[in-house]
């Protein structure tokens, strides 16, 4: 059985069907990239995985644990949702760092709060781990800076560290470099690449085709709320079979 199993996810906003019937699997340690034109539902898919949206139907299963199933689900309490969404991390396009906290405090905030209700988290180790993550992100000299004192690329790397600090099973990225100018894009892609080398399980929504091709194992091409084509990323991006995929990729050549 796969590590993550997403089955028949549908999501409507009012009368618009945003996700029509999304199914895919992935294994632990894999990197999946999601590509597709604007409005195809990529963000909505990530938001469903992170419980920021509730799918209208379908199921999500991770490591044999059924996280969501529209056919059996009764209303979930906040506590249950919080527990379920911790399987996933999400890095936003616009970073969303907390402006009143320094880089390291942005990372420590959530783990510290969680350690109060979960005795298995060692509160004294949180800060050291956060520091380690900042070093891993190449930010050892930015530990005590506030977000407004950091460049966009640095902010996004803090946001990645913040998500990693909770040890999610799968880390999701929603166009992590789209708000950055090209000079800063490279430094963020570099740390994501390093995470891939360490076998971090990731789902990355991106418009960086060569990055998707090199870093991810599987590419999913979405269009108008459906998965048009999915497969090994090199195959999908270098030699797509379907006309729609070819058209889309033509814009990136």
């Amino acid at each position, binding site marked *: 059985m796969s590590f993550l199993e997403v089955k028949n996810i549908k999501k409507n906003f009012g009368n618009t069907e945003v996700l029509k019937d999304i199914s895919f699997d992935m294994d632990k340690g894999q990197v999946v990239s999601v590509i597709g034109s604007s409005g195809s539902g990529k963000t909505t898919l990530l938001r469903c995985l992170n419980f920021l949206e509730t799918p209208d139907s379908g199921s999500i299963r991770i490591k044999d644990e059924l996280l969501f199933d529209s056919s059996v689900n009764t209303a979930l309490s*906040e506590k249950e949702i*919080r*527990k379920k969404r911790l399987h996933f991390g999400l890095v936003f396009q616009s970073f969303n760092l*907390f402006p009143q906290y320094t880089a390291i405090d942005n990372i420590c905030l*959530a783990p510290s*709060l969680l350690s109060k209700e979960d005795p298995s988290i060692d509160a004294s180790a949180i800060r050291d781990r956060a520091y380690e993550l900042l070093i891993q992100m190449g930010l050892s000299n930015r530990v005590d800076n*506030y977000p*407004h004192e950091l460049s966009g690329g640095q902010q996004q790397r803090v946001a990645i560290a*913040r998500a990693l600090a909770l040890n999610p099973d799968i880390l999701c990225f929603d166009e992590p470099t789209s708000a950055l100018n090209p000079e800063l894009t490279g430094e963020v892609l570099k740390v994501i690449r390093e995470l891939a080398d360490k076998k971090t399980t990731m789902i990355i929504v991106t418009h960086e085709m060569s990055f998707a091709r090199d870093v991810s194992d599987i590419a999913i091409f979405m269009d108008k709320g459906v998965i048009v084509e999915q497969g090994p990323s090199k195959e999908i991006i270098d030699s797509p079979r379907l006309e729609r995929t070819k058209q889309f990729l033509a814009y990136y050549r």
Partner: protein
Amino acid sequence: MFLSVTGALFAGFLNTLKLFVLTLLFSLPLGLIISFGSMKNLKLLRYPVKFFIWIIRGTPLMLQLLVIYYGPGIILHANIWGSGDNGRFSAALVAFVINYACYFSEIFRGGIQSIPVGQYEAGQVLGMTKHQIFTKIILLQVIKRIIPPISNEVITLVKDTSLARVIAVYEVIWEGQSFIKSAGIIWPLFYTGIFYLLFSGLLTLLFGYIEKKLDYFKIK
């Protein structure tokens, strides 16, 4: 003469100050509660709250003072305010608290709604509770946002307290004016101005200090 004027004005100003402090003490928390009401998705709650805010902000405080003081006695034939200075002071306080709570609630609402949803969502995906998100992330950003408009309102309140005299609450201007009749002198009125200037100056410094304290971070 100067000493007796000073004494009378101090006595009046004490009343002004009492009204000022008590108004803030009650209207700030009440304003927060009203702001939550005005942001609720439930229309049955939101619309009446918005209507109430419109009434209070759309009519003069002077009118509200008169209605709140005389209304119960004349309409309900119940003298809920009691007699004497204390009764009038209580009525004035209630009018001020309601009025200022409505103004503050709109400031709070604006402040809370100005925080981008991304801040809430970032907290959510990090497994934080609604309560933690509000207290640990949103609140301080809201406070930073609303300090300037709150400071404006508070300084307006200092001067608005003088309206309480329409229901014969003996505040500082009342005392100053009484010397026109009793002694034929006008300078005590100017003197009351100094009380206001010093007090609002002090508040300006205080708010400036708080703003500076919150300068260490910036909100997008």
